[in-house]
């Protein structure tokens, strides 16, 4: 009888959703609207609970009056209220038999509308065979009823209490499953395992510890009883914390959150392990190369990343991005979610201009890497933008130029230039521009012997290779893709009949009404037929990601809000504008985090940033923006 009742109740709750609840509380069946109904159900079940307690509170249950202890039940309406308030993942464990329900009560997993279950409404047959109802405290219920009906439940409970718990936990091994097959069996077995409610009890205690500590610290000393109760809970949680290692804590957290979702439980261990999958399938060789550059040890290296997550903090061999990077575990979650085109290397600090970096990433994404050049990180970070500027604004927005005085034409001539670009076949590369000017002024044959870019310290005039030719020398610190100071040596003599201009200035999002059409956003909308949809909340973000498989978000925010651990706010309203791309998201129980690659981050190191940080940073930037622009757009 018990089994059937719970099974039916479970089926109702799980399969029927709100419908059975509407039936349980018929008053709301005629109410209008889903949320309205739910709120009413919630209020009504609270009301029912209070009424039931009130009604039977003064009916004292005399133990001697009970005819048969096996026929003592928790009142069905009362029980349905308790199950309604209990997290749904625990319900299947409560429906096996009577004792399994009592196990959950003992493990404090069953909840009442007031939180902890303190009273129970019982139905029983008295000595005269009359059906009666009475309220009993949980403590009495356990000692007088459960101990008689389910003595093993009491025994089990003792194993998880002082002084036995240390021994119990030391004899239990909570280790991650080794294969997906084993994983799915594990979770099935866990639902049957009588110890599982206690693991979840431990997990709940650990999760509540910080909250309880804060509550305790702020509780008035005069509330002595409440403080004592809290202190007891805190000490118990601290004891669990000391007895269980980190990996076991993670295991029980995953288990208890996903008891009824084996897929999600196993995803934690298998699907999400990006590094192991990459080692096996090599789906993103360019990304893998960033983390494990040596082809001979690549597989072993990739596998080792999940074992020691701190390895990923300093993987930028060019030292050209914000460091430390997230740890390998975080990257293992963010990289599979990242949809931005990233089969190339770029180096933000060597480009220098954050607008150029971010816009080049956007253009490379939507052209599938049209502007990508192998092994040229600075060019990869800027080439798309200089091309865009040339094609759509005739370099009006790219005022990095090298100019010279053409005495024959009596003209001051300027060529747009991409600094640090050593491609001799590209018109605006530094080697081509200097070559062209040296040709005009000195007759240098740059087509046969193109200029070379070298570091100042590498120039050794005594060596034969430097005896003739054109050498562009720079100091690594002072020459970025978007801003550069350099010297030119032409056939061993310094050549300086030119002027360098560093003036890249453009709007990605409009900053003046009158120049709105010159902003890259407007130009791209028109030229590439792209839509820029403003994203104000996570619902619209989810919708865009679902409906447009290639869409990414372009954002402008304050670095101090987006990455508060890296950019410290020293003064009021300090906001360092930081463009970023959102190329995925993670959801967990109604909370969201974004997959973010900022302009200072390496393209292969996306960060998981909570939505609240993204929101605060965009809001902060809006406050300093001349047009008060909300700078978060989905592009598709």
């Amino acid at each position: 009888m018990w089994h059937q009742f719970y099974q039916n109740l479970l089926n109702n709750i799980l399969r029927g959703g709100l419908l059975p609840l509407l039936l349980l509380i018929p008053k709301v069946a005629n109410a209008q609207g889903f949320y309205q109904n739910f709120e009413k159900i919630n209020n009504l079940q609270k009301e029912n609970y209070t009424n039931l307690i009130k009604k039977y509170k003064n009916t004292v249950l005399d133990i001697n009056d009970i005819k048969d202890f096996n026929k003592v039940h928790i009142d069905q309406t009362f029980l349905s209220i308790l199950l309604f308030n209990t997290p749904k993942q625990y319900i299947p464990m409560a429906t096996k038999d009577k004792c399994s329900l009592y196990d959950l009560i003992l493990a404090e997993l069953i909840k009442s509308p007031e939180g902890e279950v303190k009273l129970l409404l019982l139905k029983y047959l008295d000595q005269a065979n009359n059906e009666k109802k009475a309220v009993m405290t949980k403590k009495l219920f356990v000692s007088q009823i459960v101990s008689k009906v389910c003595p093993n439940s009491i025994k089990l409970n003792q194993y998880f209490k002082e002084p036995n718990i240390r021994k119990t936990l030391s004899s239990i091994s909570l280790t991650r499953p080794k294969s997906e097959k084993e994983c799915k069996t594990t979770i099935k077995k866990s639902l049957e395992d009588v110890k599982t409610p206690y693991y979840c009890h431990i997990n709940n205690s650990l999760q509540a510890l910080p909250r309880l500590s804060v509550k305790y610290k702020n509780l008035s000393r005069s509330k002595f009883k409440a403080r004592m109760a809290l202190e007891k809970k805190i000490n118990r949680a601290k004891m669990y914390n000391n007895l269980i290692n980190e990996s076991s804590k993670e295991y029980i957290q995953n288990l208890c959150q996903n008891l009824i979702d084996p897929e999600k439980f196993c995803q934690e261990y298998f699907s999400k392990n990006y590094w192991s999958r990459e080692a096996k399938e090599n789906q993103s060789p360019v990304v893998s190369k960033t983390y494990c550059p040596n082809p001979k040890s690549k597989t072993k290296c990739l596998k080792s990343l999940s074992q020691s997550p701190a390895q990923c903090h300093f993987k930028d061999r060019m030292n050209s991005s914000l460091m430390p990077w997230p740890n390998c575990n975080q990257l293992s979650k963010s990289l599979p979610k990242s949809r931005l085109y990233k089969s190339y290397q770029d180096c933000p600090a060597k480009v220098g201009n954050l607008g150029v970096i971010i816009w080049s990433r956007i253009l490379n994404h939507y052209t599938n890497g049209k502007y990508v050049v192998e092994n040229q990180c600075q060019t990869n970070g800027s080439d798309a933008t200089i091309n865009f500027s040339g094609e759509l604004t005739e370099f009006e927005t790219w005022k990095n130029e090298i100019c010279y005085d053409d005495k024959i034409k009596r003209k001051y001539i300027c060529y747009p230039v991409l600094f640090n670009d050593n491609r001799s076949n590209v018109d605006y590369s530094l080697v081509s521009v200097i070559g062209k000017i040296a040709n005009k002024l000195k007759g240098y044959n740059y087509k046969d012997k193109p200029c070379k870019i070298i570091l100042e310290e590498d120039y050794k005039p005594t060596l034969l290779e430097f005896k003739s030719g054109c050498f562009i020398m720079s100091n690594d610190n002072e020459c970025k893709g978007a801003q550069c100071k350099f010297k030119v040596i032409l056939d061993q003599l310094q050549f300086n009949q030119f002027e360098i201009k560093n003036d890249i200035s453009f709007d990605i999002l409009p900053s003046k009404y009158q120049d709105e059409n010159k902003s890259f956003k407007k130009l791209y909308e028109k030229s590439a037929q792209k839509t820029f949809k403003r994203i104000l909340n996570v619902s619209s973000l989810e919708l865009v990601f679902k409906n447009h498989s290639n869409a990414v978000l372009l954002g402008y925010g304050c670095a101090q809000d987006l990455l508060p651990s890296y950019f410290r706010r020293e003064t009021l309203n300090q906001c360092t504008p930081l463009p970023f791309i959102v190329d995925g998201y993670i959801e967990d129980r109604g909370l969201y985090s974004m997959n973010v690659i900022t302009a200072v981050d390496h393209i292969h190191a996306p960060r998981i940033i909570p939505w609240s940080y993204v929101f605060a940073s965009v809001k902060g930037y809006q406050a300093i923006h001349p047009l008060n622009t909300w700078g978060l757009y989905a592009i598709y």
Partner: protein
Amino acid sequence: MQFINQIAILTFILTTPALALPELKTKQALDRLLFTSSDGKITYYRKNSGELQLSLNYKVATIMKSPANTLYQITSDDKEKFIAIEQIISPHRVMNYFQNNRIFVAVLGKATKAKLVGQGTSPQIHLDGKWMSYFDKVKNEINIVSLVNDTVPPKIIQIKNKLNPFFIPKVKVLTPEHILYTDINSKGYEALLMYSLLDKSFETVFKSKNPGNKVSYCESSGELLIQETPIGSVKSSSQIIQLPLYNNTGFKNTSILYSTEFADIPGIVCHKDKVYFVKTNQYNSKLNLRSTEVAELDPTKKQVKVLSNMKYIEQVIPFAGMILASAKGKYYIVKNNTALKSDEIARPEKFKP
């Protein structure tokens, strides 16, 4: 409108739950406000037209005229005699991170033209306005400039950091010859160093335990309070230690004031014998989401008190003699310098319920 000579704090204590911090409200547009003196009488703010303005005694003066949409950062010395101004021209169009900004100094509250000191970022005034430090992002060096004698050449410290190109050291001039600053070595360890200009030598005051850990510090009555917190991984411990600055050979005399299992958000503020920081209480590794609150550390009692229950506090900053916390794009008052008061206009008698 702009005739603001003190910020008025309107609190909503009655409508907010316990521990919810009162939001900072100002009569003037808060997003234009840059600096307010501790007594609330002197205010600097920016205009979209590019001007930096001073408001004092119901009078407004323009301190600096710059192109439209210029941003400014203003800091002051401890005694509030001078202000350091960083002028950030065209921040929306020219996004060149490695471009230095112009750095100025001005007497606090005086309507005189600010004086150009150099080019860099993060200016700080030290030793009652006698020295200024700023960081040159292009050359990767700290400049220490005398504000009282133009003939003294700037003192320069080249920092070693090559790992993180976006790192900006935190500098404090203790004496004209002794400078405290943070730096990162080639293995990613951040350290607090003391540089002696007399013998051009370095001494390590504190070195982080792990690469990638952030070192923040502040000084209070001859004691250094140093926070070490990991920034690449939240599931690692943070700590705050205390270290006497003087009579402490090799800086070996240290004591741990506080430690926690989670990574707190870097940054500490010393204020009236207490230390304020953002404490992580809970961490959701799936979302990389931490529950953070403002905490107050009493170094003498080694006690930490959580002062908020807002979950997502991002930073704590000193402002106008107060301690503020930023969260979700708003500022909240953690510690006020005056009694909280409302300047709500009383409702006329006839409209009272």
